[in-house]
């Protein structure tokens, strides 16, 4: 009797559980599909971006062909557009920004990991992250109202007088001191990407096994020698990845640059002269571009920018992924 009761009770329970599980099956599958769909959405967005850029820039690219990349004329009236000046400005401001920010960033990271008293480490780290959090438009207006006049009054005349007369590189520092221009934009960009380089370098410097460093110290190395010969070679891949990430951000930066670049369409010449970058050109001219070819040329510039940053960021990600794998994540 108890057996029968137990058996029927168990059967009833199993029936219940199967029914209950079946009730969950649909939401379960739906949820899984929802998550997968959302993940695919990310790919769709990227695909959409690429498609719309390619589609929008097709008229310009087919009209100008390869000449679009080499021509530096940008004339909305005769409808002749060329991306050379914008590409040149984008690359040169970013490269100079890197030249300034990388030594500074690595220096700060070295200081924070090796020399900084422990109590100051966190506040300074937070302060550096604060720099990263400041929106780029604030860099732009600070650059326009404070930094550029400062450069114009104090730094640029000095540069023109000294470096402007050095044979060979003199032409890079020639010309009237506008205050705004390629060099100013590069300085502002450098301050913007400094926190990225610092935090990535600091994170990778902290992954160096203490034993490696202590062995070096035990051999009598100075702090700098430990950094130069142990820390940096060990983290070299991560540092390069971080630099490329910072480069990717610098290339795409719009607002910090637009205020201080000077909007002149030219390739080469003095660093103290105005220039333009891809994002500054688009930001300044898009809402007023008349004519299909003009709009299409601007979208083509966007495509070029996206392509350049895509390549740089992909390389950075691949490098950093390799580092993650090495660290066992």
């Amino acid at each position: 009797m108890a057996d029968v009761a137990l058996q029927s009770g168990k059967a009833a329970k199993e029936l219940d559980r199967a029914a209950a599980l079946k009730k969950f099956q649909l939401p379960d599958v739906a949820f899984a599909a929802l998550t997968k769909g959302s993940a695919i959405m990310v790919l769709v967005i990227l695909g959409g971006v690429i498609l719309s850029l390619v589609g929008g820039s097709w008229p310009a690219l087919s009209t100008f062909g390869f000449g679009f990349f080499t021509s530096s004329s940008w004339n909305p009236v005769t409808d002749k557009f060329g991306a050379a000046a914008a590409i040149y400005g984008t690359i040169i401001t970013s490269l100079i920004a890197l030249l300034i920010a990388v030594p500074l960033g690595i220096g700060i990271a070295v200081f924070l990991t090796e020399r900084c008293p422990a109590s100051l480490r966190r506040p300074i780290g937070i302060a550096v992250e604060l720099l990263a959090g400041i929106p780029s438009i604030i860099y732009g207006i600070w650059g326009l109202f404070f930094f550029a006049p400062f450069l114009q009054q104090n730094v640029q005349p000095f540069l023109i007088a000294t470096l402007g007369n050095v044979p060979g590189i003199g032409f890079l520092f020639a010309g009237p001191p506008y205050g705004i221009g390629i060099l100013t934009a590069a300085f502002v960009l450098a301050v913007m990407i400094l926190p990225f380089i610092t935090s990535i370098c600091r994170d990778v410097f902290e992954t160096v096994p203490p034993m490696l460093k202590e062995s070096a110290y035990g051999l009598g190395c100075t702090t700098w020698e430990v950094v130069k010969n142990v820390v940096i070679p060990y983290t070299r891949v991560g540092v390069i990845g971080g630099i490329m990430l910072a480069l990717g951000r610098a290339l795409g930066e719009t607002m910090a640059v637009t205020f201080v670049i000077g909007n002149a369409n030219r390739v080469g010449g003095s660093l103290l002269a105005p220039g333009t970058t891809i994002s500054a050109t688009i930001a300044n001219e898009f809402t007023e571009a008349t004519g299909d070819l003009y709009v299409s040329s601007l979208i083509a510039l966007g495509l070029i920018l996206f392509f350049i940053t895509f390549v740089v960021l992909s390389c950075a990600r691949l490098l950093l992924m390799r580092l993650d794998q090495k660290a066992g994540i």
Partner: protein
Amino acid sequence: MADGYVVSNKYSGRYRGNQIWMSLCMAATFIGLGMLALILGALFWKGFAGLNVAVFTQMTPPPGSSGGLLNPIVGSLIMTVIGVIIGTPLGIMAGTYLAEYGQHSRLASVVRFINDILLSAPSIVIGLFIYELVVRPAGHFSGIAGGLALAIIVIPVVLRTTEDMLRLVPVQLREAAFALGMPRSFVIRRVVYSAAKAGMITGVLLAVARISGETAPLLFTALNNQFFSANINQPMASLPVVIFQFAGSPYKEWQDLAWAGALLITLTVLALSTAARALSTSRKK
């Protein structure tokens, strides 16, 4: 390190080199902190000077008169809400896929890679995309287009933090729930999400902080509006775009408002970042 020691000739060169390099590193830190002080100092000085009650209660003025920032503040709030409402669920769902369902799937690694690219992609390109997708067919600029552009910037941030936070939930919690017979979606929703809740909120806060300062994607999606408008189907003012317009102008009232707006944005971003950090450290404890 070598204080008080008698330094031999051979070592002194290395010692001096070390001193020089370490001083340079310290100098670099001072330069970095100095830049921060200069920028924040200028921002606070000029921003607070221009900040008053009118900034929150009056609309943007025509050139030469005084006014406030009411319409851009409200516009920014509305578009941020739209961006968060659209972007957060997508980001969380996609992050859930990557963390829970896709550890070994090819799709997951591709999505992860692409997401990291989108995270650092130039935001002006996102603006171009939304212009082609929404503004051109509609024939006019609108707040919803601006909100959509912001949503695309929110998604990668939320996806990344969601995945990272979900990954951190111990496997044992999941296994215990499975052992009790819960189906997978339930495990994720009831157990894992609760465990990772603080982290996911951190992600949303960081995303909001990120889009608060974005200007470029709004330039040709939401355009601008000098009057108060809560109509998302019309051009909508936003703080960053108004700052862009006002700072580039020669009118003193406009420049003062631009600095006040810049201060508001920075304070918002700082508050959100601090809240995010506080949430994540309290969770760690």
